[in-house]
């Protein structure tokens, strides 16, 4: 029973840590510099 509880706690702690890292990583992906795009020559298209 004790080993089971320890395994459950470790699983929960790892999940919390992984979620925080995931949130940090994915948030950074939308905060970067605007993507480079071909310059559009207005009036020529």
């Amino acid at each position, binding site marked *: *029973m*004790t*080993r*089971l509880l*320890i*395994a*459950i706690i*470790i*699983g*929960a702690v*790892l*999940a*919390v840590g*992984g*979620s925080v890292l*995931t*949130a940090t990583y*994915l*948030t950074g992906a*939308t*905060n*970067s*510099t*605007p*993507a480079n*795009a071909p310059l*559009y020559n*207005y*009036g020529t*298209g």
Partner: protein
Amino acid sequence: MRRVVGVVAAGLGTFLLVSGLLLRFYVAGHVVKFPLNEYRVTTLAGTGVTYFSPSLLKDVTGATIRVTRTIKGDVASGTASRAVWTQFSYSFDVTNGVAYQARTQRSAFDRRTGALFACCGETAGSYTGRQAGLAFTWPIGTKQQSYQIFDTTLLKPLEVQFDGQATTDGLPTYRFVERVPAQRFGKQQLPSSLVGLHGQPTVTLDEYYQATNTYWVDPVTGAVVNVNENQKITLRDSGGVQRLVLFQGNLPMTPASVQSSVNADRNRRAGIEAITLTIPLGLGVAGVVFLAVGSWLALWRRESGDAPAAAEYAMADTAF
């Protein structure tokens, strides 16, 4: 051995279950929002447009107008909850090869609701006052209800009504319509001869604006994937008589732009659905199964004839 496998499975199950819950209720809240680094170009094109050309100083009729809108995010001005995007809108008369209008709109808005608020150098043309309502996006999780949208001609929020569900290039969308009855929004002074009035060199006329603007919105992402702007701007005298048409035309988004908007939106929609539904659900189900089976393996004891397992269990508990 069975007990060890059970303990490991229970730990793994807890990890999956908690990860699924946190992905849905913690990670999604941090990640599912409008990006700071937006960049997109859309084009509207209308035929048979009538407008008064400031460069040609005459009425132009039957023109094909192409409006190119470029939206670019100002990352440096954004925060975790606020995005600042700038839209440059350039109108070009393809028929006569002359520019018609160029306008800039810079707005700050909530990264989940799309609602505008004051922050850092908002503009709409030369207007630098308060902006309210929606501008570039609808809320993430758009509902079938009326919203307020900031009208850049009248410079105030106007109601835009839900008008039904639609399908845009295979994408389920909500259609919203902004109906603006003719209303005065400014004055212009111009040579009397331009409007057929004589007796004085200049005349001041009232500017009137009326429009029916239709927006097709992906309710999951809040992205506008198609738009149709039918607008009329006129100059009227004090008696309400129309003296000059400054602009009259219907400007739908080009099919290529609609397709491009839908394609970009599909990726965003898939990401949102994955992080708010598919992955959390999968993790949760797998977690419950692993946790249940693992716990059963770790705790289950045979009532009889399994003395070795009972002994193993007793020894394991004693060891802790």
